[in-house]
């Protein structure tokens, strides 16, 4: 029983990203920070145990969990049926304001308008799952390793449009690049979940309780404001 182990050891090990802003990134001191990191801190706090952050990538985050090297994965995980066969998901803990962005001269009001275009996206991220679902067959989706790849592909003109989070697009705009990503349309608001091993009902219940409480007492709202610059949507 993972929960019992955590409480006995007084330590919870949580996998967080460090190359996926704004959910996980680093400061100038190379310490992890971001939405997912704050969420991890919140959970450790509420459980009253020490937090051990384990930085992961999209390639190894699930193996970390499956080999019991971490107890939870908080890495802006999106849900799909295949994934649910392998691990369990908590209640949603974060919204994801995903949109398709592109330069002013490219017109695209909804998914149908992407037809014939090339869209860049970060492989395995929520927007990858969602865009793949809604895009017409003749859209070319280029899947890059990380946000930097996606953004570089956009800035260097390798793709027409990108699908990414609002905050990432805002970060590009901040640099005032020659090519400005403007919002074209929002992808269905798909939330993120915390991942944990199967057959850990106690831990799952505990995490869900903490999320529910955090939503009530405004802690989650505060994290959302801090990292996404937006209110938590009501439907979360």
């Amino acid at each position: 029983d993972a929960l019992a182990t955590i409480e006995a050891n007084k330590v919870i090990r949580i996998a967080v990203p460090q190359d996926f802003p704004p959910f996980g990134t680093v400061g100038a001191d190379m310490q992890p920070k971001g939405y997912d990191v704050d969420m991890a801190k919140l959970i450790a706090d509420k459980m009253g145990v020490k937090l051990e952050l384990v930085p992961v990538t999209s390639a190894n985050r699930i193996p970390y969990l499956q080999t019991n090297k971490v107890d939870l994965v908080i890495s802006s995980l999106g849900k799909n049926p295949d994934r649910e066969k392998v691990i369990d998901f908590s209640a949603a803990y974060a919204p994801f304001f995903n949109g398709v962005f592109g330069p002013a001269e490219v017109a695209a009001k909804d998914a149908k308008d992407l037809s014939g275009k090339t869209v860049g996206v970060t492989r395995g991220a929520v927007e990858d799952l969602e865009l793949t679902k809604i895009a017409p067959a003749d859209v070319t989706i280029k899947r890059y390793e990380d946000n930097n790849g996606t953004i570089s592909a956009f800035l260097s003109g390798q793709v027409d449009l990108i699908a990414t989070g609002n905050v990432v697009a805002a970060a590009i705009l901040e640099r005032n690049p020659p090519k400005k990503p403007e919002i074209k349309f929002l992808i269905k608001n798909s939330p993120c979940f915390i991942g944990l091993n199967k057959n850990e009902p106690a831990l799952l219940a505990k995490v869900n309780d903490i999320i529910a409480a955090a939503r009530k007492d405004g802690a989650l709202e505060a994290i959302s404001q801090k990292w996404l610059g937006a209110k938590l949507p009501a439907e979360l």
Partner: protein
Amino acid sequence: MSDFTTWDIVRNLLLAARWTVLLSLVSFIGGSIVGALLLFIRTAKGRLGPAFVKAYVEVFQGTPLLMQLFLAFFGLGLFGIDVPAWLAAGLALILWSAAFLTEIWRGCVESVARGQWEASSSLGMGYVQQMRHVILPQALRVAIPPTVGFSVQVVKGTALTSIIGFVELSKAGTVVTNATFEPFKVYGLVALIYFCLCWPLSKSSQILERKLNVAHRNH
């Protein structure tokens, strides 16, 4: 969103480069020891030993190092064997380097003239004595340039340890780029640091080789 100054970037990359150096040293030194053992087995008479080393080399040279690292860390984890990341990284890198070094050195041993084996045999020396006193001293001289040359591959190979959680130079570069979105600056610096680490190695390998060729011509 980014609070990195250029100095922060350089500092963090240099700090991460310490891992690159440490991992390189471990894998090179360990790889040399294991490689030397394998070399003895590979060049000895008999069937089983050489065949084993051959298969070993085939597997470690025929699969991506990334996967070897992945399997050493997570694969063993699946079986409930909890190896710490540094051990898995060290192990995989050592086994990987050993495979290459054994092959490099075997070539050098084979480059020693057959007459040297025969002359030492006819003087009554056994296999280990021949290797120790006659073959290796000659092979070693030839082996130094390609061995130093291979160390460059080791330095670059350590980049793949990020798959099991090491934030060495390459990974630090990725992490910092994803915080700053300044790929050209960051990757330029990463390339520069790699170049500073590797170039002295390749250069000295070339110089050694040239020396050796000159020495050879005097024969």
